[in-house]
C-alpha cells in the first residue's frame, strides 16, 4: 500500500488549501473541489478492490482503532476490572462493566499498544494465561447478574513465550471455550482487527460473531502459513488468499453472522462513522438475543458449534 502515502499527501494538501481559503480570503474552492474529486478517485482505486493480503495489512494498520477506542466511543461509562485473582493483571486483555443500548454489559477486549512503551505493557495485544483467566472471571461475573457479554477481538495470537507455557496457556484457552459454551447470558463477539488463531477464538465462542469489514480471522497468520505449508516465507500473499481470512469470505462460508462496514480506506479514516455502525449492529444483535431464555440460548449456541465443519459422507478410495 505504498500509494497510501500519496493519499495522505493529497489529504494534507487539501487541508492546507482549506486553511488558506478560510484565512486569506483567496477563493480556492475550485482547486479544492478538483483535488477532492481526485482524492476520492484515488481512494476508490486503491481501496475498492483490496487483495486479501492488503486487508491483512489494513487489519494491522498502526492507525487502526483498538478495543479501548471502541469501548470509549460505543459504550457508556466503562468501569474496568483488573486481575485474574491468581497471578496478575494482563494489560493485553481488558475487561469491565459498561452500558450499551440501555443495558449493563460486560465488555472484554484484546488491547494493542499505540507506542513502543505501551506495547511493552500490553505485549502487542497478545494475552497470557492470566488474561484469559481474567476474561473467564469477568464472564462468570456477568452470568451471575444476567449481563450480556460483548467481546472485541484484536490479537496476533496468545502470547507465545516461556511464561505463557509455564502457566499453561493452552489450558487457559480451553477453559475459556468451555465456560463460554455453557454461559447463560448472550455473547456477541466482534473481530475488530486481527483474529489470530486460538488466542482470538478463546474469547470468540458466541451467539453472534461479527467482523469489521477489514478485519481478519484465521487459524494461522499468513506469514507462518507461508513458512509451514509453502516452505517459503515470501509466499504470505498466497497464504492470505488461500486461508479465506477476510470478513467477506468468512461470511460467504457461513462462519460469521455479519460484516460491519468501514469507510473506504479503513476504520481509522472515519472512526466516528465506524463506531456508530458498530454500535447499531451491537444493539441490534443484543436485542435479538435479549428475550431468549437462558437454557434456550445455551442450547442454540450448542447447536451452532456442534454443527460447525464440513466433511463428506463416504470412505477413502484406496489406490
Amino acid at each position, binding site marked *: 500500500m505504498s500509494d497510501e502515502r500519496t493519499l495522505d499527501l493529497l489529504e494534507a494538501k487539501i487541508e492546507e488549501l482549506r486553511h488558506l481559503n478560510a484565512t486569506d480570503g483567496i477563493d480556492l474552492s475550485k482547486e479544492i473541489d478538483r483535488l477532492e474529486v481526485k482524492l476520492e478517485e484515488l481512494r476508490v482505486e486503491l481501496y475498492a478492490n483490496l487483495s486479501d493480503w492488503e486487508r491483512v495489512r489494513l487489519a494491522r494498520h498502526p492507525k487502526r482503532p483498538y478495543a479501548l477506542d471502541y469501548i470509549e466511543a460505543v459504550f457508556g461509562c466503562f468501569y474496568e476490572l483488573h486481575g485474574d485473582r491468581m497471578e496478575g493483571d494482563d494489560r493485553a486483555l481488558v475487561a469491565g462493566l459498561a452500558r450499551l443500548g440501555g443495558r449493563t454489559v460486560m465488555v472484554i477486549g484484546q488491547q494493542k499498544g499505540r507506542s513502543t512503551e505501551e506495547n511493552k505493557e500490553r505485549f502487542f495485544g497478545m494475552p497470557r494465561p492470566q488474561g484469559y483467566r481474567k476474561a473467564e472471571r469477568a464472564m462468570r461475573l456477568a452470568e451471575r447478574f444476567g449481563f450480556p457479554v460483548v467481546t472485541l477481538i484484536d490479537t496476533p495470537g*496468545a502470547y*507465545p513465550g516461556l511464561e505463557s507455557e509455564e502457566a499453561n496457556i493452552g489450558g487457559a484457552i480451553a477453559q475459556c471455550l468451555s465456560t463460554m459454551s455453557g454461559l447463560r447470558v448472550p455473547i456477541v463477539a466482534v473481530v475488530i482487527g486481527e483474529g489470530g488463531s486460538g488466542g482470538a*477464538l478463546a474469547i470468540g465462542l458466541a451467539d453472534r460473531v461479527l467482523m469489521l469489514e477489514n478485519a481478519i480471522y484465521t487459524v*494461522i497468520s499468513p506469514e507462518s502459513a507461508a513458512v509451514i505449508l509453502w516452505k517459503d516465507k515470501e509466499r504470505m500473499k498466497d497464504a492470505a488468499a488461500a486461508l479465506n481470512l477476510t470478513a467477506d469470505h468468512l461470511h460467504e462460508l457461513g462462519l460469521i453472522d455479519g460484516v460491519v462496514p468501514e469507510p473506504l480506506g479503513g476504520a481509522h479514516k472515519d472512526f466516528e462513522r465506524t463506531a456508530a455502525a458498530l454500535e447499531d449492529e451491537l444493539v441490534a444483535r443484543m436485542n435479538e438475543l435479549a428475550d431468549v431464555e437462558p437454557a434456550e440460548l445455551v442450547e442454540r449456541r450448542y447447536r451452532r458449534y*456442534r454443527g460447525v465443519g*464440513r466433511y*463428506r459422507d463416504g470412505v477413502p478410495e484406496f489406490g
Partner: protein
Amino acid sequence: MPIFKERDYLRVDLDREPDESLWMKCKSCGELVFKRRVRENNNICPSCGEYFFLTSIERIGLLVDEGSFEDVTRPIVADDPLGFSDRKPYPERVAEAQEKTGLADAILIGRATIAGFQAVIAVMDFRFIGGSMGAVVGEQICFAIETAIEDRRPFVLVSSSGGARLQEGLFSLLQMAKTAAVRVRLAEAGLPFVSVMTYPTSGGVQASIASLGDVIIAERGALIGFAGRRVIQNVMAQELPEDFQSDAFAFQHGAIDRVVGREGMREELAALLGFFVEAQ
C-alpha cells in the same frame, strides 16, 4: 484375535510388516535393533528405552482388552471447503495420508473395555497430516463423546497431534469450540473424561479438548504445549530450557495430573476408571 471388527473402509493389518527391512536404527541411541523386538516391546527401543511413535491401531492394541474394540468411527472423509492448495492441493494430501495409513483421517474411535472397564476411546494418529484436527477429527471426537453419553461410559481420548488442520482454515480452528462444547455435555451427564497426552499434544488440540479432561495423564516422553518451540524462539527470541514442554515441564507447572510409562498405561487407566465406575 483381531481387535477390529471387519470394517471395509479401514485397511489395517496388525501383523503387517511396516516395510521390508527387519532391522531399524534407534534415532536416540543409534543401536541397530530388531524390528519385531521393538514391536513386541510396545515400540520402545529394547536398547535405550526410547519411545517410538505408536500408530492409532498399535495404541488401541496396547490399551484395550483383546477382542473388545468395537470400531464406531463414522464413515466420513475430509472435504475441501476452501479449495485449499499450498505446495499441493489439500485433497491430494488427504489421499496420500489415507494411502499411507490405511485410515480415513487422523483418528479412530470405538467402544472397548480397558482391563474390564467399559469405555469409549478415541485415539489420534500422528502419521495422518500430523494428527491435525480438521472437521473430520472434530466430528469423530464429538461423536465419540455422544456415544459415551448414550452408553453411559467414561470417555478416553489419546491425543497425538500438532494442532489444527491448517488447510481447512477457520473451519479447523472452530473445531476447538465444537469439541469443547460437546465435552460440557459429558460433564453434565456425570461421566468422566480421561485425557491421555502423548508425543505430541500441541496447538489447537492442547488448547481445547485435550486440556479439558477431568484427569489428564501424560505418557512418558510426551510433548505438551501450545506454541511450538521454534515459533517462540523465532518470534520472541527467547532462550528456552532444555525440558521445555516436556512431560516433566508440564507436570512441574501443574498442567497435568500424572506421567505414566507406556507399558503401564492400560493398568493406570483401569486403576483410575475404577474410582468412577464398576468393572464388568
